[in-house]
């Protein structure tokens, strides 16, 4: 009887659906069992919900999936919440935590305090990492590099960043960023996803989910990592979609023959066959989808289709052969070497030109616990010219007008030396209480410095900007109210900024 009933329900057309899993599912909903369970259980359930059991049972009554979908649709429909200033974002992530002392945060008074112990009144008992917590002293290490003022804005920039100094009037330098995390993994995850624990969508995924694509032939969110990174590791969750549908995940572009892995047809395999195969695959997926209704199947189909379109669009956009020499001169000699930061900056410009909405570059190697003067000099040399070139290139082509450029790492570094301090060598440990980032372009004031730190470069004295504030501001520039872009997962609504974040209105133009 009950088997017959099942056949009626799904019809002969879906005979293939008689998988063991489904049979089990059907059994669960078997009418007789249902009635038995519910009538016997009814009293108990009613009493249970009387005695404070509401939380336990209340939600079950309301088909949660349907509600969520409705709400999600409404949330997306309301976007953008107001007219955006920025249409695209390029985020130059300096992984490892660049020192603010040797780059933008000029602390001339430290010179006189060379080697003195950091006063407790400044540190105020703040926790240190295990790497320097047991040091017998915390000797103050002034920057060995000199600073000068540049541009009409008279902004102090270190001698390590001569090219960046040249575009300083286009930058909005924020010296008062702070974070809650003191180690790389949680700090970078916090910056990129709004939470220190893995599992949340990255900024680019939120943006991609909220605003959609402006170029259907390329991913909305693309990440690239400079090659030869042998420092703190990076993980795909930094551009992952977390609990958002997987089609909003950032697509990693690599240097070399296969910018996107497994995108090209295997050797000797004809493109027409591929297309035919994909057409059949799609039919299979559609059948599966109508049977199970798993939204991930839709995502899978969308991704196959995107991959197919990318077979032609990616080689085109990733080819730098057509660029004039003048462009390579601008980005520096590295830009001819695929996979370098400079080459990635050039590619980023090309992607932005194609209206890719969110391009994220990662450059590792900023984690100088020891030998900082040499290490950071090298790091700056690798990024300085190309970074400035990107700003210049975006500006002269007009893209800077609606593109937001962001430069920065996951935290700053300590004023005191980790390990031995000598006149020309020292290290710096992680420092979450203040660090410097800059933004440039769409909707952001140019040629300004925002926020101040104390003479030790240890605490913020003016206009602190929390990581969530930064994220809120980023979304704001794209026309998104960070409090209204939410997604319901596992029974609660999440947002990039959790329950925090204030737009930094002072830096908006």
């Amino acid at each position, binding site marked *: 009887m009950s088997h017959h009933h099942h056949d009626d329900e799904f019809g002969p057309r879906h005979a293939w659906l008689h998988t063991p899993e489904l049979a089990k599912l059907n059994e669960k909903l078997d009418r007789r069992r249902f009635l038995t369970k519910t009538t016997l259980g009814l009293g108990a359930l009613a009493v249970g919900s009387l005695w404070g059991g509401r939380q336990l049972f209340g939600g079950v009554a309301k088909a949660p999936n349907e509600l969520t979908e409705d709400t999600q649709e409404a949330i997306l429909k309301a976007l953008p919440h107001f007219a955006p200033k920025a*249409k695209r974002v390029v985020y130059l992530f300096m992984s490892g935590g660049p020192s603010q002392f040797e780059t933008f945060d000029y602390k001339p008074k430290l010179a006189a305090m060379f080697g003195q112990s950091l006063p407790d009144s400044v540190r105020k008992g703040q926790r240190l990492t295990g790497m320097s917590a047991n040091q017998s002293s915390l000797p103050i290490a002034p920057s060995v590099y000199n600073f000068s003022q540049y541009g009409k804005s008279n902004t102090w920039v270190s001698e390590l960043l001569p090219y960046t100094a040249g575009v300083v009037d286009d930058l909005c330098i924020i010296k008062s960023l702070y974070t809650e995390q003191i180690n790389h993994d949680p700090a970078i995850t916090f910056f990129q996803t709004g939470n220190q624990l893995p599992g949340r969508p990255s900024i680019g995924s939120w943006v991609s989910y909220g605003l959609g694509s402006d170029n259907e032939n390329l991913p909305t969110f693309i990440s690239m990592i400079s090659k030869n990174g042998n420092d703190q590791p990076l993980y795909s969750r930094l551009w992952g979609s977390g609990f958002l549908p997987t089609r909003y995940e950032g697509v990693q572009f690599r240097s070399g023959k296969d910018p996107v892995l497994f995108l090209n047809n295997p050797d000797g395999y004809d493109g027409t066959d591929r297309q035919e195969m994909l057409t059949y695959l799609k039919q299979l997926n559609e059948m599966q989808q109508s049977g199970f209704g798993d939204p991930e199947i839709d995502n899978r189909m969308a991704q196959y289709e995107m991959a197919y379109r990318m077979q032609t669009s990616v080689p085109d956009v990733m080819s730098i052969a057509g660029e004039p020499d003048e462009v390579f001169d601008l980005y520096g000699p590295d830009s001819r070497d695929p996979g370098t930061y400079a080459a990635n900056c050039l590619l980023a410009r090309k992607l932005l030109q194609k209206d890719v909405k969110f391009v994220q570059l990662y450059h590792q190697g900023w984690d100088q616990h020891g030998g900082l003067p040499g290490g950071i000099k090298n790091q700056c040399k690798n990024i300085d010219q190309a970074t400035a070139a990107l700003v210049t290139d975006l500006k*002269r*082509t007009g893209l800077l007008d609606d593109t937001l450029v962001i430069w920065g790492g996951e935290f700053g570094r300590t004023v005191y030396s980790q390990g031995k301090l000598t006149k020309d060598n020292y290290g710096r440990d992680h420092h979450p209480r203040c660090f410097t980032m800059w933004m440039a372009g769409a909707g952001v004031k140019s040629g300004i410095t925002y926020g101040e730190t104390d003479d030790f470069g240890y605490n913020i004295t003016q206009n602190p900007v929390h990581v969530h504030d930064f994220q809120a501001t980023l979304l704001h520039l794209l026309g998104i109210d960070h409090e209204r872009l939410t997604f319901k997962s596992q029974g609660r609504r999440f947002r990039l900024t959790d329950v925090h974040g204030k737009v930094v209105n002072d830096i908006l133009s």
Partner: protein
Amino acid sequence: MILLDIPTFFGRLHPLVVHLPIGFLVLAALLDWASYWPTYKSVRAAVPLALGAGAASAVVACGLGWLLSTTGDYAPALLDNHKYSGLALAGVAVLLYALITPAVRAYVALPKKVFSGAFVAVLGLMSYAGHQGGNLTHGSDYLSLSVLTETQRPKPTSLEQVFVFEDVVQPMLTRRCGQCHQDGKLKGKLRMNTHADLLKGGKHGPAIVAGNLTKSELYRRVTLDPAHKEFMPTDGKTALTRNEVALLKWWIEKAAAADNTKLTAVKGSEAVQPMVAGLLGLSGSTDAVVQEAGNDAHPPNPAIPMTGDTARITAARSQGFVIRIMNHKPLMLDVTWPKKTGQPVVDLAVLTPLAKHIIWLNLSDLNLTDSQLKAVTQYSNLEKLRVEKNPISNEFLRSIAGLSYLQALNVYGTHITSAGLTALKDMKRLEKIYAWQTTITASDVQRVFKDSSNVEVIL
């Protein structure tokens, strides 16, 4: 599975069942009192039945009411009033009924007049409990004396009719603060119903001090860091928008926090008039805009129509335009014709119905000439225009001089010259001209725009 929510189901019967004791008890009182008249003497015999039914149904109503109270979000204070008065009523009814049962009467004989008098208490208690129940359901201001005396202010239809306090500040405070600072729920002993209430203030002194922001506790509270424990409104209730705070500030500082004053009568009110118009939805305006863009210092251009025909957007998209909605109200569009190999000639005609909605336009690198781009001059609300890398000349620049909202113009890699720049000199809102890869030089820019201009020419 609805089966799980038995308490909710039965709880919701409470408002129905609760009318049974009301009817029965009124009937019992009526029968008892009427029996003093000889005509109705005989009905006394029915009193125990009516009273018994009333008492029994009151008990049932109490039970259902309790179920309902566990399932709804009711204000605890109001709920308690209703709960305990309801329980008391049921108790009194049961007691009265017990007193007239033969078994009890054998021990205690209640005098007839006392019994009749007790019905006054029953009806009084019933009215109170019923009113409290009404307050729970409809809100405590649903049936009150102030409803009798209250007069509804007519909504002003022009800025000239607007009173600063009555039409702007008070509705705003009621909206944001009313829930907790009104009759019935005076948090912090602060009542915010009237102008006088604000001047009187609450536990922490006056809420408003004319002309003095620092002494105005209300202003201090709403401008604190939202994470601060004294920030208002508290408990995650919707905070005042930036515009609302700005208006509040202006009212305290510049309008002497006065009531009964017309907006236009206050000196310097021009500064806030657009904001007020937006807030009150005046002059065909931007109600939704100011609400939506609450955080935006620059309200959108009022010339952009609020809504547009979305079918036209779909039509333009099907022709190959990429159209991004930048804002819903007013409807602002960002339109791009992406460069494709072997593409057909761009036909701008399909954009004509959307002309006033096009705010950003990108027609770069499409080999378009001056005459092919003529339609652009109709897009009167354009703010950003990208026509770079097209074979256009100074004639194009002259043709767009009337685009008075244009802020950024990208003409790099075109045939324009310094003579063409002159045509852009009087465009008031123009801030950026991208003219890289043209014959224009820095000295041309200097000659045309001088130093005083807002225009930055990027070469």
